[in-house]
């Protein structure tokens, strides 16, 4: 990501050189508008239109600049003003590149290469074509086609060397070529081009010196050359503290430098304190620059450093901001990374619901990212296809013109054209093949990533689903129980009270059979409501804890007379945590239900033992027993629920059943927090 970004940066700086050769980092918009208004169709006006248009587009994101550029192009063409034409096209191409509008960008730069030149000053032409090639290289680079990019860059170099070489221009070309070689993983070649810069360093403007060091740093980074990185960083540091940059360059270089410094401390030195300091500096600069994408990237870096330093409390809000801004601004890559980190943090913090939610967000962002990538790829493919079609049309038009003029050379022309078309067809199919292969590779990578996510999720799935079973279902149950008591319960109570008051006031009612029946039914309904609420969530369990609740349960069942339940507990004076209590209660409920339904037992013993973090539960009956291996469907259904609950508590379940003697169920749990 950084590599692309910087490469584009070089490109932008390059265009700045063309447009404002002197010191102009800011331009006087008003005076340019005055020139446009006062002059008529002369080259001065064309220049003003181009500068104003380019300025509006690149600095103000104001698309009215496009109209100005179109006007400038039209006028320049009618005036035969070659430089004006090229400047207009370059500005337009630069804007299209920024917008990822590859079709327009490629077409515009190709137009520069095709533009006929009539004047004597061929240096201008060389310069314009050199820039067109350089920028075309940038576009192919952005789209991952480093080979084509390199070929354009080399063309650009050839042209640069034809003119009296200005070291600053050469450095850009060399650095860009080195960057292509680096991305093609031909590191020796990359180093070779960077070496060519060395003798020119003293003559360079500081910004190009900085760019050279930046590319050197990138190369050292992929080569994992720590000493090299340290040297490059030291060089940059010297530059930003001593060299004379323009105001915009100061911010830009400072931002880049502190970003790199921070990454270095974080990823190589593991010195997180310094990394955080550097990234904070970088963030401050990004804020001053008023560049959203840089700010986001700085935030992300800072958050990652906090995260690596174990300061998750500081990291979380930053990542959340990155995620939010990333989603809002369409910076999906940043948002995805932030969501991924957040998921990891919350996972280690045990907040699985949040972790899962961010994991899902990361996956969906990753999907949309891949969709975007594919769309970008398709757009690019389309752009190349359209461009080649256009070139073929141009070729055929030219061919027709030539036909009229030179009938003799018809055959040759035809052959040339066919060869050109054949080459185009071959190129196109190669490109298709390549892109297909890339897409396949991408799909494969995509699939592997997804599988990894799925494995991770599957691992979490059980715990999380059980977690939500407890935290969701049980919370819901206690909420419903509470609502029943507070709402309906209160109403029933009041109705019953009023009824009894009414009876007192109108004694005759007592003799009415219907009145008496209704009164009874209200009592029954009220009792029924209590029973339902109790089954939902026994108040005694929440208020007084597991032993009290189990004592209640045992007494209730014993009072029924069918089954005598004894309960004893040891070491449970301190309460367990709420979730564990509810879980154990539900397990015992289920076990007792099974016994009542299937075991034909007369007595049951429930026993809880706790010593420090060891907890064991025994439920033993004197029923007919069953074959644990071949339990019938219904029993195993109940058992499955019990098993999953035991699994949730990370316990062990042993069912030990002897026919006609009874069944002993033993559940062993290691409690998380013995002090709780």
């Amino acid at each position, binding site marked *: 990501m950084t590599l692309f970004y910087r490469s584009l940066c070089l490109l932008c700086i390059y265009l700045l050189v063309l447009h404002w050769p002197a010191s102009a980092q800011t331009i006087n918009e008003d005076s340019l508008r005055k020139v446009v208004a006062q002059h008529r169709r002369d080259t001065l006006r064309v220049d003003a239109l181009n500068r104003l248009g380019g300025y509006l587009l690149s600095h103000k994101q104001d698309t009215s600049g496009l109209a100005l550029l179109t006007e400038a192009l039209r006028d320049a063409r009618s005036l035969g003003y070659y430089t004006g034409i090229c400047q207009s096209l370059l500005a337009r191409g630069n804007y299209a590149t920024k917008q990822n509008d590859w079709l327009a960008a490629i077409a515009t730069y190709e137009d520069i290469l095709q533009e006929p030149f009539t004047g004597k000053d061929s240096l201008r032409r060389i310069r314009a074509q050199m820039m067109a090639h350089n920028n075309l290289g940038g576009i192919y680079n952005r789209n991952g086609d480093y080979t084509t990019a390199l070929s354009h860059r080399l063309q650009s170099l050839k042209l640069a060397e034809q003119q009296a070489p200005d070291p600053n221009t050469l450095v850009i070309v060399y650095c860009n070529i080195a960057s292509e070689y680096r991305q093609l993983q031909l590191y020796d070649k990359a180093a070779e081009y960077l070496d060519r810069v060395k003798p020119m360093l003293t003559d360079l403007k500081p910004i190009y010196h900085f760019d050279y060091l930046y590319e050197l740093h990138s190369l050292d980074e992929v080569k994992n050359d720590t000493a090299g990185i340290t040297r490059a960083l030291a060089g940059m540091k010297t530059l930003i503290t001593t060299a004379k940059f323009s105001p915009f360059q100061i911010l830009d270089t400072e931002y880049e430098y502190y970003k790199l410094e921070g990454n270095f401390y974080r990823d190589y030195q593991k010195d997180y304190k310094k990394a955080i300091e550097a990234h904070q500096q970088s963030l401050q600069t990004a804020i001053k620059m008023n560049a959203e994408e840089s700010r986001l990237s700085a935030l992300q870096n800072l958050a990652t450093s906090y995260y690596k330093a174990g300061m998750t409390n500081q990291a979380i809000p930053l990542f959340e901001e990155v995620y939010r801004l990333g989603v809002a601004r369409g910076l999906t890559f940043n948002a995805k990374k932030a969501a991924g980190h957040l998921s990891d943090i919350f996972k280690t913090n045990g907040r699985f619901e949040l972790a899962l939610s961010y994991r899902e967000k990361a996956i969906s962002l990753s999907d949309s990212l891949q969709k975007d990538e594919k769309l970008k790829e398709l757009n690019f493919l389309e752009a190349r296809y359209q461009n080649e079609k256009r070139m073929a049309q141009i070729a055929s038009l030219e061919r027709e013109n030539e036909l009229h003029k030179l009938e003799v050379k018809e055959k040759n022309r035809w052959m040339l054209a066919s060869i050109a078309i054949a080459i185009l067809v071959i190129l196109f199919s190669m490109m298709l093949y390549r892109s297909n292969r890339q897409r396949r590779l991408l799909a494969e990578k995509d699939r592997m990533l997804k599988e990894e996510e799925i494995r991770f999720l599957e691992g979490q799935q059980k715990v999380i689903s059980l977690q939500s079973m407890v935290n969701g279902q049980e919370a819901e149950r206690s909420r419903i129980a509470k609502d029943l*008591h*507070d709402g309906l*319960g*209160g*109403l*029933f*109570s*009041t109705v*019953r*009270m*009023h*009824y*009894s*008051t009414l*009876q*007192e006031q109108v004694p005759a009612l007592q003799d009415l059979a219907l009145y008496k029946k209704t009164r009874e039914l*209200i*009592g029954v309904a*009220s*009792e029924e409501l*209590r029973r339902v*609420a*109790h089954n939902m969530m*026994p*108040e*005694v369990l929440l*208020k*007084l804890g597991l032993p*009290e*609740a189990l*004592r*209640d349960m045992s*007494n*209730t069942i*014993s*009072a029924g007379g069918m089954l005598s339940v*004894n309960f*004893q507990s*040891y*070491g449970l004076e301190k309460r367990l945590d709420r979730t564990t209590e509810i879980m154990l209660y539900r397990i015992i409920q289920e076990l007792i239900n099974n016994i009542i339904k299937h075991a034909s037992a007369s007595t049951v*013993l429930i*026993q809880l*033992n706790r*010593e420090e973090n*060891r907890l*064991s539960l*025994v439920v*033993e009956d*004197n029923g007919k027993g069953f074959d644990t291996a071949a339990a019938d469907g219904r029993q195993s259904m109940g058992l499955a629920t019990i098993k999953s609950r035991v699994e949730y508590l990370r316990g*062990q379940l*042993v069912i*030990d059943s002897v026919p006609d*003697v*009874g069944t*002993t169920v*033993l559940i*062993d749990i290691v409690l998380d927090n013995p002090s709780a």
Partner: protein
Amino acid sequence: MIKLIIIDDHPLVADGIATMLKDESYLQIVASAKTGRQGLAILSEYPDCEVILLDINLPDTDGLQLCEQIRQLYPNLKIIGLTSVNEAGIISQMIRRGANGYLLKDMEKEELLHAINRVLDGHVYLSKGANEKILQQLRELDINPHQVPMLTRREKEILSLLDQGLSSQEIASRLSLSIHTIDTHRKNMLQKLNVHNTPALLKAAGKLGLLG
């Protein structure tokens, strides 16, 4: 005139009680509160109040704790707990923490008056809805909890095999259980008899007549 205070967060319930009592000339509801904190404040305003109807499910405080607190502050006050649940554990706790009686919230007028009269006479009043299990549990309150522990069937088996001098490993293979399971049963028995090793366990079990 007997002064009475209601603490219940449910306005309808408080209303219902007021309606039931409004014709009783010897009873006067002097105030009612919706929260525990409010209740304590009102109680301090009416030191001559004799009976309090206390909902044990309040939004701000745990009703059982509040009951205990009121009992400590006002030793002579008669507390009747109001509850919407009929659970033995909760009710016995309430009585243990100083309530003089309890009523299910859907009581009728006669029961309410009867309960007030009973507690004023110094008796404990339990709701008509108090069933056998509640009475059982209340009776058990006074029973010594340190009774002889019951051993489970498996524990008895393991104990007798230990008594025969078998090791955990040998018992495990004899009973087709894992050694871990045997160990858990053994540890449970150690805890139940409050001893720390197998010889002490056998000795204690022998004393209590749990062997053979």
